[in-house]
């Protein structure tokens, strides 16, 4: 026995020595490359090795909504408009220019004539019409379709709606005859220009010298410029329900025909081969910034119709972007090569991009350090590593158009009381949290510092004393009227979150703050992601739940619009028609600054009701080797690949975050 233990201890010592030498070896490796994380040898070929994230659902740009897919789609497909690599503002792509009518309800895109698909077919306006109609088709069931709902009759088509046709008068029933608020018709805002009769193109569009305007007098254009038709649900049960709520309409449809809304009714028109006109159902000044989104990137009709859902198979796929598909090894890598057919091919600098489908941050950082990856996507440096990585010259950190916040359930429990919501918000020291996590605190709802000129309102400051007074007022007080933590029914409130990313560290911190500042212990409940989303969607949570949002396009409306409807991505149960009215008014406002001011008013109104607790503004947090140029930590963290290149001259490398203002 004694002999065994002495041998055993010898082995143990050996093992410990081995472990220690491993540890020191690790230290030596990170200390040897001062300033950068790991190797800085550029790849021999003109190739970028990048991580795209989890396996793409599909290479069909209209199928998936994720950022992991967006990274690939931006290489393979091009839209009318592209994101600027630094500011993410819209810049010309297949559309070389565009015009917007006076009230932002109609746009005309002029396509360049040398744009081609990867098989050499020319890209025309008809391809964009096809793409948008297909994306909206109900049987295609795109999860992104809602992005196109600003287009006239797009929502009606996607939801399988019907028009009401009167065979006697050969006309369709019009919305304006059945407005719910018709008692005060004077307050109804005028219809957008896109729904008024065409006076003349010149009256609607600013004049362009030496340019012939597209034909305004097409049948379709006149149809678009007529007052909106009544649209009813196609499903009989839902339709009857809608009609029961509106007796006047119910009476009016008796004996009328129901006509299904068709793809051809959606407000996109190929005026000629290279002119595309889009009519919107409402005024939407932000619509142009939505155009680079993957949903609107053009696909090849012939290939889709021939191969159906397998058209993205590497054998069949035809693409429209600066790169085309070379190889797709699922769960491993996707390789794209420069497409010589692309109109801008001479400016595309990389020969090839290899996208690895990786999800584990440590694996990514290992590959990056070993020099097998040249760059990573946003949020790939874990918060716990920031102490070390934050000072590296290849660490890309910049404010992101993304926010972290908690939702309050305003429909039940203690958080139904606005004073409780305000108190919980005021007793969290967001600055302390932000400093600890190397991010920026957020007291309002839109991300601060992202939209230049936007007069963002300030939310409530950190004020635990005020918070206690509010809670005392809300009834959590002892006999003398002072706040009593014992009375606060913390058990009726819990924070739910999914375990992804830094959510747990945030939750722990917030829990500790409330314990410290209010003396209340609010339990954290961690749920598997899908379970968590399902609970949030049904408002099936007690009090507080985590959420985050990143911009779909560069406009405050992408955030404020979350509360445009009581359902959908609202998730709080709070909804105020006054808020919606302000948003509508803002979008009817042509003057940019004036519009921002109205949006800010809406944001203020919402913050006063406190349906959410803002926490932090995102930061991009990723790594890029110094020799990778033309790639910026922009606010949307979407990289247009055609401007990226490998720089071999060390004097032109990036030693730090590249300048994004020049």
């Amino acid at each position, binding site marked *: 026995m004694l002999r065994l233990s002495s041998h055993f201890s010898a082995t143990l010592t050996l093992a410990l020595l081995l472990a220690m030498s491993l540890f020191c070896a690790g230290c030596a490796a990170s200390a040897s490359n001062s300033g950068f994380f790991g190797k800085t040898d550029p790849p021999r070929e003109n190739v970028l090795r990048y991580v795209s994230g989890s396996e793409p659902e599909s290479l069909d740009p209209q199928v998936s909504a994720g950022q992991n897919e967006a990274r690939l789609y931006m290489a393979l497909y091009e839209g009318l408009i592209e994101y600027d690599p630094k500011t993410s503002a819209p810049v010309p792509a297949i559309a070389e220019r565009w015009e917007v009518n006076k009230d932002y309800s109609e746009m005309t895109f002029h396509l360049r004539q040398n744009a081609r698909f990867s098989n050499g077919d020319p890209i025309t306006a008809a391809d964009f019409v096809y793409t948008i109609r297909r994306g909206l088709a109900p049987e295609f*069931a795109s999860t992104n*379709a809602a992005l196109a709902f600003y287009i006239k009759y797009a929502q009606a088509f996607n939801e399988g709606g019907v028009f009401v046709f009167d065979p006697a008068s050969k006309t369709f029933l019009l919305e304006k005859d059945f407005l719910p608020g018709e008692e005060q018709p004077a307050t109804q805002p005028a219809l957008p220009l896109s729904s008024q009769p065409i006076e003349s193109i010149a009256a609607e569009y600013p004049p362009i010298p030496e340019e012939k305007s597209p034909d305004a007098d097409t049948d379709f254009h006149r149809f678009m410029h007529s007052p909106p038709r009544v649209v009813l649900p196609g499903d009989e049960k839902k339709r009857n329900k809608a009609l029961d709520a509106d007796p006047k309409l119910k009476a009016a449809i008796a004996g009328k025909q129901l006509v299904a809304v068709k793809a051809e009714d959606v407000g996109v028109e190929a005026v000629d081969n290279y002119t595309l006109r889009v009519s919107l159902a409402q005024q939407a000044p932000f619509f142009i910034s939505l155009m680079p989104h993957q949903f609107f990137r053009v696909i090849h009709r012939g290939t889709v119709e021939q191969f159906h859902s397998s058209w*993205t198979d590497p054998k069949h796929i035809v693409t429209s972007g600066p790169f085309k598909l070379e190889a797709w090894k699922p769960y491993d890598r996707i390789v794209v090569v420069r497409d010589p057919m692309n109109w801008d091919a001479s400016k595309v600098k990389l020969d090839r991009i290899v996208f690895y489908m990786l999800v584990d941050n440590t694996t990514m950082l290992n590959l990056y350090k070993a020099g097998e990856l040249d760059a990573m996507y946003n949020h790939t440096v874990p918060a716990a590593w920031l102490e070390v990585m934050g000072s590296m010259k290849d660490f890309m950190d910049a404010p992101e158009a993304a926010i972290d916040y908690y939702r309050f359930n305003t429909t039940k429990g203690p958080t139904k009381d606005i004073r409780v919501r305000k108190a919980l918000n005021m007793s969290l020291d967001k600055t302390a949290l932000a400093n600890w996590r190397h991010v920026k605190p957020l007291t309002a709802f839109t991300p601060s510092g992202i939209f230049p000129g936007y007069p963002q309102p300030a939310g409530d400051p950190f004020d635990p004393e005020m918070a206690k007074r509010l809670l005392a007022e809300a009834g959590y007080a002892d006999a003398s009227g002072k706040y009593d933590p014992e009375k606060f029914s913390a058990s009726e409130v819990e924070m739910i979150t999914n375990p992804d990313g830094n959510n747990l560290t945030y939750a722990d911190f917030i829990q500790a703050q409330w314990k410290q500042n209010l003396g209340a212990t609010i339990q954290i409940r961690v749920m598997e992601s899908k379970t968590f989303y399902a609970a949030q*969607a049904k408002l099936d949570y007690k009090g507080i739940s985590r959420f985050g949002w990143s911009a779909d396009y560069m406009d405050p409306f992408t955030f404020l619009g979350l509360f445009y409807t009581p359902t959908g991505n609202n998730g709080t149960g709070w909804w105020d028609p006054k808020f919606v009215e302000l948003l509508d008014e803002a979008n009817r406002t042509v003057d940019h600054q004036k519009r921002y001011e109205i949006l800010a008013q809406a944001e203020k109104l919402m913050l006063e009701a406190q349906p959410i607790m803002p926490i932090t503004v995102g930061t991009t947090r990723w790594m890029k080797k110094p020799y990778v140029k033309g790639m910026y930590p922009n606010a949307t963290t979407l990289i247009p690949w055609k401007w990226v290149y490998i720089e071999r001259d060390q004097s032109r490398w990036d030693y730090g975050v590249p300048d994004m203002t020049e």
Partner: protein
Amino acid sequence: MLRFIIRRVVIIIPMLLIIVTLTWGLIRLAPGNFYTGERKLTPAIEQNLREKYGLNKPWYVQYGRFLRNIARFDFGTSLKYEGQSVNQILWRALPVSAALGLTAYLLALVVGITIGTLAALKQNSWIDYATMSLAMLGISIPNFVLGPLLVLVFALTLFWLPPALWNGFPSKSVILPALTLSAIYIAYIARLTRSGMLEVMRSDYIRTARAKGLSERQVVFRHALRGGLLPVISFSGPALAFLITGTVVVERVFSLPGLGNYFINACFNRDEPLIIGIVAFIAVAVLVFNLLVDISYGFIDPRIRY
């Protein structure tokens, strides 16, 4: 023997049916759906999706269709990966897992049996203690710790081997994952071999063999190993099934496109056809390998007859 095999093969069918039905039911009990995400869909879009995938039909219709497809070995199309059939995914991911699993398996058998035998033959010597302590370490260090440690040394310090990714088989990228994967199996097999051999070496027929004047080498390799390896064989059959059908942790740590990686993601994605396809595949593999082990007993140990 033949009757035994036929009986066992026939039993596989109802077993499989129970397994896939249970899986089918469990997926339905889990909250959320394949399209549930951080961003809520509008009800109409959700409706369009449910219609597209036949989820708005009553459960018995869905179950009937499911059984019909299973009977034809058609697991359908993945819900998450548009246009990819489950069979396609299985055949693509299996070679990766199988190549990795087989390498690890062979490594485990060769190293495990060798050091186990050595330890048994030199019982209570320093070789015995050293190998058995290492085996203890191998069993107690989980592979999600061992993998990153190996990566730290061989990929990030010495820069000899890639830290992750799959570059085909054979290639340098197989070495670290195979080592990580095999560690625990080496350890188990070494311990099993040692105890099996120790028991056999004391038995009468070994004494007989020695008495016949056979050399020690012949005693060990011709007589002792056959008996001493029985516990190893009953362990290694199911082990092989699990190894080649994908190992979640190692495939995750090294980002390999194998079945294990697909499986864990399919669960997170609630990708029903893919989950059921992989579960059924693993179930068949485990059942078949168990059968093979039982059959092989008959050949290795003359005392066992069916």
